[in-house]
């Protein structure tokens, strides 16, 4: 595809619901990143994949957050039992390199937990 796509663009969930956010990276990009961005702040790193391997999940805020990239392309970020503090924009980025990485971002998914 032409760029990184994410779906849905907007998600409203009731507290306690599970949500799944999808990221389609640029075809052939090895690296994939998930970030969480609160209003007025910069992105905060959540997790990193190199192909299908999740090499770093140190930024995931709790064990309610889970990410996968089973075939090394599409990735899903799942949040179980959502809480109000999970409300944020979730950004996905991909990169063709593993270091010195210019990252290409998707439009994000705005999650609102009521």
């Amino acid at each position, binding site marked *: 595809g032409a760029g990184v796509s994410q779906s849905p663009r907007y998600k409203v969930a009731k507290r306690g619901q599970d949500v799944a956010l999808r990221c389609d990276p640029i075809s052939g990009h090895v690296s994939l990143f998930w970030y969480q961005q609160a209003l007025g702040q*910069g992105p905060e*790193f959540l997790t*990193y994949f190199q192909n299908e391997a999740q090499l*770093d999940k140190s930024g995931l805020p709790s064990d309610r957050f889970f990410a996968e990239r089973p075939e090394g392309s599409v990735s899903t970020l799942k949040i179980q039992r959502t809480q109000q503090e999970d409300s944020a924009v979730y*950004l996905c980025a991909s990169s063709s390199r593993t270091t*010195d*990485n210019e*990252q290409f*971002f998707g439009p994000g998914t705005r999650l609102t937990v009521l």
Partner: protein
Amino acid sequence: SQQGEEDPQALSIQEGENATMNCSYKTSINNLQWYRQNSGRGLVHLILIRSNEREKHSGRLRVTLDTSKKSSSLLITASRAADTASYFCAGPMDSNYQLIWGAGTKLIIKP
């Protein structure tokens, strides 16, 4: 935790003027990146400067890097209304892949 800290937090200038934003960072880096974010286009990579470079140009953008002061600046010349956005600096941690971001400078260009 934030690697970069942008200054000022907000900047409002007239169209045609130059805009300068600064970024200070905490740990040693091998490169520093600047990104722009607006509601229309999301986060877009602008320029990457390596630790052995002091200055880099791309169109109307000029980036400097002073590793001794752990600081960088982004200059946008002849600003346009379309430059209205938030600008972030980001630097990799030791892993070289994980970017740590500042809170951004919000730039408003007045017509």
